[in-house]
């Protein structure tokens, strides 16, 4: 089930909220778990068993890990338990996500034709597997005690607001809330606003930009201008698609009494690629930092090893996004850019104020064109065409038409991808708070705006427009 759908918004969500809030505190994790399993099973009824199996293994491994740390088992060291369980999760993850990728590469190298298994990727496996692994590592590091209550752990892993597209929630950050959380009107209000803003970002902007990108792919009238239009549209599309989903997840979390981590912080205003990755998919970045980069030694190692660590992290970041060479190259592309920045460029960029944003946006544009290609040859062809080396005209009728037709959508998206609107809202809030009347007017305006956005998004959904979630495939 997806958040931006009529069944979720007007059937599933109200039922779940009703059941959740009429249930006493101690039963709410069970309600949340049941709701999450239904949410997952709605589109993936078979793979719900795989998720439950993963949770069970994680639950048992956590307890075993804690007991082994107390010296309860002579031959079972904590390291062995952790390694074994991570091995199991990595195995499941690799089997479902990469088997066909390995087979096709094996076939390409050996000339054999081992048949592909065509394994259907379980939705959200990349997110919940990483959450379970982080839980086990945190228990191993004694940062959190093992969760003794299966329902609580299962509610954490399967929590429907973040189950299928993140943010990747660390167990440590919600451990206390799983035991006891308070739902306040202030949290609910901010949760509602956040959810509606996320929904509008997804439905009114991301879906529209996605339709433009789909139209581009199907077009027989491509031109350099059309490639640029597509590249810009895709950069905005993926941002609003993913950050819209994260906003909805965070908003739902707040309504339910959870504080889920932020996942985006206006990444397109970054002054360097290094900064971009501190603002984009922050929960994944911090996961790789804490569970891969730092255990490898981080930057407290000789330079050669430091660079190696960076490349390993970015190789895995690329692979996490998809089992295809263009994702691997995409990851390494950012790895190289980060190394170049760390070694030379950051110092120059600090002084080049006007140019650095253009530099970042251009490199991101190329990166996302690569990201959205079906394979490496299409990625290279797209990049060539982007720079006028594809033997296509500079301008085409279709490009001009869609530029005109999507001009306002793109303009609104560009503005919405900066903190301008949030700063404006904060500024108004501070000013109106000084007087009771203006404060009430502002409050009414916010409520009306939220209802208007909900209504508009619903109208778009009712008309059945383009509505896939990009990050479902990861």
């Amino acid at each position, binding site marked *: *089930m997806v958040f931006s*759908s*009529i*069944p979720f918004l*007007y*059937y599933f969500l*109200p039922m779940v909220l009703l059941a959740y809030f009429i249930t006493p505190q101690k039963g709410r994790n069970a309600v949340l778990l049941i709701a999450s399993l239904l949410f997952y099973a*709605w*589109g*993936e*009824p*078979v793979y719900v068993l795989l998720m439950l199996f993963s949770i069970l293994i994680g639950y048992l491994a956590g307890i075993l890990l804690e007991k082994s740390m107390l010296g309860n088992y002579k031959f079972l060291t904590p390291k062995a338990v952790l390694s074994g369980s991570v091995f199991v999760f990595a195995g499941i993850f690799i089997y479902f996500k990469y088997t066909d990728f390995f087979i096709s590469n094996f076939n390409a190298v050996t000339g054999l034709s081992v048949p592909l298994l065509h394994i259907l990727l379980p939705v959200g496996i990349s997110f919940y597997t990483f959450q379970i692994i982080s839980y086990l590592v945190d228990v191993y590091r004694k940062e959190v005690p093992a969760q003794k209550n299966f329902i609580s752990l299962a509610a954490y892993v399967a929590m429907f607001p973040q189950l299928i597209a993140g943010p990747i929630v660390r167990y440590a950050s919600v451990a206390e809330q799983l035991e006891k959380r308070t739902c*306040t*009107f*202030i949290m*609910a*209000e901010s949760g*509602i606003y956040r959810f509606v803003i996320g929904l509008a970002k997804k439905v009114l902007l991301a879906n*529209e930009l996605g339709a433009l990108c789909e139209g581009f792919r199907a077009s*027989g*009238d491509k031109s350099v201008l059309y490639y640029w239009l597509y590249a810009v549209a895709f950069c905005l599309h993926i941002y609003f698609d993913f950050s819209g989903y994260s906003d909805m997840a965070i908003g739902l979390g707040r309504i339910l009494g959870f504080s889920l981590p932020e996942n985006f912080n206006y990444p397109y205003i970054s002054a360097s690629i290094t900064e971009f990755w501190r603002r984009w998919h922050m929960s994944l970045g911090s996961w790789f930092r804490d569970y891969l980069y730092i255990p490898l030694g981080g930057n407290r190692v000789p330079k050669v090893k430091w660079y190696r660590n960076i490349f390993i992290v970015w190789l895995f970041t690329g692979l996490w996004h998809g089992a295809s060479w263009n994702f691997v190259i995409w990851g390494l592309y950012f790895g190289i850019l980060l190394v170049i920045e760390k070694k030379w460029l950051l110092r120059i960029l600090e002084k080049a104020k006007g140019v650095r944003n253009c530099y970042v946006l251009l490199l991101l544009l190329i990166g996302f064109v690569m990201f959205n290609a079906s394979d490496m040859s299409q990625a290279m062809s797209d990049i060539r065409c982007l720079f006028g080396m594809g033997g296509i005209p500079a301008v085409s*009728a*279709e490009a001009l*038409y869609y530029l*005109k*037709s*999507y*001009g*306002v*959508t793109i303009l*609104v998206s560009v503005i919405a991808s900066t903190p301008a609107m949030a700063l404006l809202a904060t500024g108004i809030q501070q000013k109106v708070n000084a007087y009771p009347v203006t*404060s*009430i007017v502002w*409050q009414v305006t*916010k*409520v009306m705006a*939220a*209802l208007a956005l*909900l*209504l*508009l998004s*619903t*109208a*778009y*959904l*009712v*008309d*059945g*427009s383009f509505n896939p979630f990009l990050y479902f495939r990861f």
Partner: protein
Amino acid sequence: MSNSKVSVCVVTILYVVLVLICLFRPADEFSASERRKLAQKPQFTWESFTSGKLAGEAESYATDQFPFRDAMRSLKAEFSLNIMKKADTNDIFVKDGYLCAMEYPMEEDSIIRAAKIFEGIYEKYLQDSEVNAYFSVIPDKSYFLAGKDYLSMDYELFFAEMYEQTPFLMPIPIEKNLQLSDYYRTDTHWKQEEITDVAHLLAKEMGVQLAGSYEVKTLDVPFYGVYYGQAAVAAEPDAISYCTNDVLDNCTVFDYENNKAISLYDIEKVKGRDPYEMFLGGNISLVTVTNPAATSDKELVVFGDSFARSMVPLLAEGYTKTTMIDIRYLPSAYIGNYVTFSSQDVLFLYSTSVLNNSITLK
């Protein structure tokens, strides 16, 4: 009460009202504006659940049965066109008060496919007979409206290619005899009362004279065309009219698909799903019009689409028998079971919309 409490309560109350309407509102069976059946509540079975079919059906049901569906669709269309300044909504654009589908791009494969089907008909039924075979392409509204503001195919190229691919048919270009006002504002079709000059041209090219004076009767029913439903924008309805005279009144019409006599204009169908189906019985595969007072002793066979249905009554005036064959519903391989070709005039009369999407032709 704190501000947050009030805000949450207001939003919750309105949300709950909408949810309750969703849950308890009786389901509609049919959408008049979209001219389609709406999805009904899916039946839960374990198999449909595990296969994911239930999720898809429930999604269709929830979306189709959403309260105030037409108003919601209009809200989306108006916001999209007027606030977000999209040039079209659901590939329909609004210009000079007309709703128009973008016929774009030109599908070469479709042209070739249509030409191959016509060639098959010609080789199987016509080439060894003494028929005279003609071909006219009817431009869709985009031909007049798109200009440089909207995407449209190169119509001159389209006409040239279509006629070039069908050298066995004698072309009768009609686009110069048409203008935008000959078409309905909210529908794809032309108006019968505005195409009498085209009927005269076709008849003349085929060597037949039409008397050509008609009484135009306008029906007192608002005609919301197909684009009205697709675009979901606010638009005034059209008025649907038809041409008649004593000769046409005395014609007999037979529907071979349902094996019954029907009337030239079925006024009851104006109240139905598609008012344009009033012409010659609507989407019927094979119809004949017999005219005891024809101006010639010739017979005519028309291969055509829904545009041709409103043209056939006008042409029927000049022929003793006019047969209308719609190969979207009657595969061309079976035509020989119903029609014997000898010395008739044969007219292929198709709109650019059908020819550019010829997958529907059989």
